[in-house]
């Protein structure tokens, strides 16, 4: 074990495309994980760290390879950038802090280590990220179109007519572990997946795996999803949050 730590501290950390380079990065990622993540996510990465019991929602279990915040289609693995983003910006409203202050190299190493905790990453290809549409500005027209998408897709069933997370189904939902889960209050400026409109676009198209939030990637074209994202963005902007 002493030998591993010595290697981690002295070896160059750039994944140079060789097996050794990749191994170095994973080893470095494990060191960072043990310093920063282990108290909540646990030594095994199963989300059962010492602090986990007092947290709601529970910390992520990395061993299943199921991730909520992705840019890929439902059921697919996240991209490295998806994992890097969540580490960097954290998850608003939860105990998951932002780790933007960690050196980028260490956050990249963490991504490599987290992937090593689930056999799915060795077995399956990561999905292709869903492309953002060409930029469309926030205008009264785009917001009105987005509101129409909100109604047509029946988002209010869970999120409520005012998007505050209080729809008729809100109290009756559970995640795939059977734990109760509330729909997001979409009027908040900091959503769990990041700021609107980008985070809303991703979550609507990709869904949040492990939760009842389904993917609309087969039901909406990207322009419609972007209008919807602008509508959600307008809700927090309007309230001056």
């Amino acid at each position, binding site marked *: 074990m002493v030998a591993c730590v010595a290697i981690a501290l002295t070896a160059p950390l750039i994944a140079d495309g060789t097996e050794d380079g990749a191994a170095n990065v994973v080893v470095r990622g494990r060191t960072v994980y043990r310093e920063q993540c282990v108290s909540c996510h646990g030594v095994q990465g199963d989300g059962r760290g010492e602090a986990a019991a007092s947290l709601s929602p529970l910390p992520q279990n990395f061993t299943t390879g199921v991730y909520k915040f992705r840019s890929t289609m439902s059921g697919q693995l996240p991209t490295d950038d998806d994992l890097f983003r969540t580490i960097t910006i954290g998850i608003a409203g939860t105990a998951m802090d932002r780790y933007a202050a960690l050196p980028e190299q260490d956050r990249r190493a963490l991504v490599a280590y987290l992937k090593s905790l689930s056999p799915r990453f060795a077995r399956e290809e990561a999905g292709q990220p869903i492309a953002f549409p060409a930029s469309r500005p926030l205008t009264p027209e785009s917001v009105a179109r987005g509101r129409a998408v909100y109604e047509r897709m029946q988002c209010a069933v869970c999120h409520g007519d005012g998007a505050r997370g209080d729809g008729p189904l809100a109290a009756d939902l559970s995640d795939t572990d059977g734990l109760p889960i509330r729909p997001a209050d979409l009027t908040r400026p900091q959503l769990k997946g990041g700021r609107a409109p980008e985070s809303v676009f991703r979550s609507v198209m990709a869904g949040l795996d492990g939760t009842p939030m389904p*993917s609309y990637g087969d039901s909406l074209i990207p322009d419609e999803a972007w209008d919807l994202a602008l509508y959600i963005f307008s809700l927090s902007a309007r309230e001056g949050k």
Partner: protein
Amino acid sequence: MTRLRVVHKAVLMMILGVVMTEPARAYEVDLSAGKTTVRGQITLRGPAPPAERVTVLRDSAFCGEAVTNESLLVDRSSNGVAVVVVSLEGVTAGKPLPDERRLALENRACRFSPRVKAVPAGSQLEINNADPVLHNTHIRKSDATFLNVALPPGGKTIRKPLADPGRLDVRCDAHRFMQATIHVFAHPYFAVTDQAGKFELTQVPPGTYRLRVWHEILGMQERTVTVPAQGQAIANMELQAPN
């Protein structure tokens, strides 16, 4: 340096927790391999419980105030259990997989139709919603999300390939009483029992195999079946009624 490399590899393997397992031998088509038919009946031991009525909490104006749980269907005269998935495990070569490679899964009248289905690997799943209410089709395979898609009313059909064998559990988060199960097989020796609980597997090559049966609420059981080179083999099984 070489020694360090070895250490690196060992550490990486340790971290990855990699367990090298031999992949199961892939199924091969051999038209001459099998001539025997395996027949059987799956029956219930003990009295069949009365069908459960589940109160509908959401969209009851359309779905109805209550729905009957149709998961256990028992033939009164023979105690045969319908809709049991039966498969013969361990056959490595034999008849080709069925031609039908499409599974239409419909959300209709707040039910999944079909409720239980067995299909060959490589089938295309096609999900649609015939109802005027929002459904989602949330499919899990062991502890991972296979698919969770929204099905707004009037929306289009959603397609997803069923490439790998295994059991897929299907739910609707908006209507929790909605359930379905899809079994995907990498070989053609599978069947779903009829109303009398009977099944038939044709063109089975000789050998000793495991007959695996699965029922939505009675669970999974296995027994050994020895198949002769010709003629037929009878493989019945009794499943215990729930308390």
